[in-house]
């Protein structure tokens, strides 16, 4: 991380505010979000510092952080924020922006979400076995959960065929029109 003094990227601040519909000036850096965050131990920046990076317009650091990809969306921060800031939504928005700028600091997480949505687009519903195969293909993580496969198969927990919806065209249409919108 560069530590040279930087100017506030006011455009970035405005964009996060607009997309998250949150007033970032409300944050007084009490640290409650960090205190309650279950995944904080795995973050590079704790949540309150992510909020600070946004408050001070440090776009590059915020969008390339690992934290925004590791946030589990558990909503603890949002629930307990004394200023009623929807912190989890800000984390969501930062992920959206990072993806748009092709910055994916947690490759596996990004790949999993991509594979998940591809499965939804293809079948209308998530096909778990296909999703795993796609994810392994994307990441080369051959041994992901192979230890669980025998158990999952024995218990019938892993469907062998996809449950495609009937009107797949509607789903494809949604994805197509969504892409046009963007």
């Amino acid at each position, binding site marked *: 991380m560069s530590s040279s003094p930087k100017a506030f990227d006011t455009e970035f601040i405005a964009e996060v505010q607009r997309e998250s519909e949150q007033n970032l000036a*409300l944050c*007084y*850096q*009490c*640290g*409650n*979000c*960090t*205190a*309650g*965050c279950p995944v*904080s*131990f795995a973050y590079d*920046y*704790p949540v*309150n*510092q992510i909020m600070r990076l946004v408050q001070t317009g440090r776009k590059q650091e915020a969008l390339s952080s690992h934290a925004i990809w590791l946030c589990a969306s558990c909503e*603890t921060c949002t629930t*307990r*924020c*004394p*200023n*009623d800031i929807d912190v989890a939504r800000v984390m969501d928005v930062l992920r959206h922006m990072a993806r748009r700028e092709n910055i994916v600091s947690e490759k596996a997480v990004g790949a999993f979400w991509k594979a998940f949505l591809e499965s939804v687009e293809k079948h209308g519903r998530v096909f778990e076995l296909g999703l795993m195969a796609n994810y392994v293909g994307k990441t080369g993580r051959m041994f992901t959960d192979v230890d669980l496969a025998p158990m999952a198969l024995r218990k019938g927990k892993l469907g062998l065929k996809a449950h495609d919806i009937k009107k797949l065209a509607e789903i494809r249409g949604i994805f197509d029109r969504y892409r046009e919108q963007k």
Partner: protein
Amino acid sequence: MNIGVFVCHCGSNIAGTVDTEAVAKAALSFREVVFATDTMYACSEPGQAGIVDAIKTYDLDGVVVASCTPRMHEATFRRTLERAGLNKYMFEMANIREHVSWVGKDMEANTRKASELVHMAVEKLRRNDYLEAGEFEINKRVMVIGGGVAGIQAALDCADGGLEVILVEREPSIGGKMSKLDKTFPTVDCSSCILGPKMVDVAQHPNITLYTLSEVDSVKGFVGNFDVTVRRKAAYVDWDACTGCGECTTKCPSKKTPDRFNEFIGNTTAINIPFPQAIPKKASINADACIKLTKGKCGVCAKVCPTEAIRFDQQDELITERVGAIIAATGYDLFDFTKYGQYGGGRYPDVITSMQYERLLSASGPTEGHIKRPSDGAEPKDIVFIQCVGSRDKSIGRPYCSGFCCMYTAKQTILTKDHMPDSQSYVFYMDIRSPGKNYDEFTRRAMEEYGARYIRGRVSAIQPKNGRYLVKGADTLLGQQVEVEADLVVLAVGAEAAKGSNELAEKLRISYDPYGFFMEGHPKLKPVETNTAGIYLAGSCQGPKDIPSSVAQGDAAAAKVLVLFSKDKLASDPQVSNVKLVRCIGCGKCESVCPFGAIEMVDFRGMPKASVIETVCQGCGVCTAACPQGAIQLRHFTDNQILAEVNTLCL
């Protein structure tokens, strides 16, 4: 009529967005305006001198000043007119600052609007009458509501100044929150040692009548002449007979009565004297817990009382006191921390409030000054203090800083170390607010000499773990999570308006803020006055305050009362309602709508007619709107005057 118009620049406040010269020029075309000018600061000495000169030079008999709100300077300019020999009611003010220059930036529109407001003022002024203020007698007794340290201070000052004082307190004893504290910051002197003598002074002062276990029931009247009805609640004990010997409390079998004074740590008896230094030191019965009063049996206290003072059939008593001034000193309540579900919401026995901890520290408290966990009586080793519980938290409707928690927490960490040298205190804080004299040095001492570990960050949650508590916080300076295992957690609960304060404010007809704290007359220049004449504020009822500030306000409020009472008579405002007898049909509508009881029905040659008690009327005008005949008119705001203003704008 010769009218003069003065258009104030107010520096750039008005002139920045209003063409004041153009407004003055426009005014010259209004009827009966013989002189008009713009002026830099109309309220300044040269500004006022200019008005006096113009009155004399142009033989003016009415003046309009276009400047700020009348609340700011109406009285100033009225005095200017008086100095120039005019009746002070021949004056009108057009508010072209708050209503024009501060709300719009369009110079042209602003100038037009300002001219129109001046025109309206001129038309009203043309219909003004000479009014003369009357005089009325005042009653030089004062009531102080609330017997905490602020109320005690105010009562003693007034009494020492020779006034007759009635001190009303809701609890059985005076002393308030301060009487529950162990030590006080930043001197760590014993709270009851410094408050106790003052409480005794109250009891012994010949000028003070003390009503405890009493509340204000209703307030009638006006400055100089209030009638306050006080409800003296049944103590079920004849206090004239009770000697405070305490025999009843030792024999009472109802020993599991919730102990209010000790913040519900431990129990007391149904008949009790709240604490050893109570003033008055009289027993009273908690009716909800008393076996005799709930089940009809027992009566042990009556049998053992050496003076036969017990009165199970005692009823509330209403007493009306006539006073000339009232000081509200009703204090505050502590934030109800059960709203914080993440801190257990009251489910964890060893998560307590700072005031409960204060009682644990106090030698006269339920543990005789030994710090013990409420759950098992064990001495705690690791104690976590959490600041800002119910302060600076928008999500629970408490965005304000309570102001004293940082200091009392530092004090509690110091006392903790004094009580238990092997203990360790941790303080989770956001910012340390310690701006008083010797205050910051005190919080530093807690860290530097007493080893309290201060951690900058809020606590997200408290979770029970193996008979202790896991306090999940953050150190935002490190940018890391911090988990501390604690034997006892003390929540620095903030202050909120005292329960029932809104109702009392309604009775006193004073304003209160969105949180229920009473509003001062002006945030800077009238800190202990209210917008209702004759009613003053002291202490935390106006906003959270520490002891020195509460005492200072008690002194200030007393001084204000002594100033008020330095005159024998007060001038009455002539801007009051007035009945035209020929038009009045005696329907009584005005009497029924008057919020001040200022209208009475009288017999006039065999017919009922309304009559205004001029000293009681506050000039609100409700009666004039209610009268179907237009028979009751508010002087200085008659229908004709208001219609003239409307017509000026609309025709």
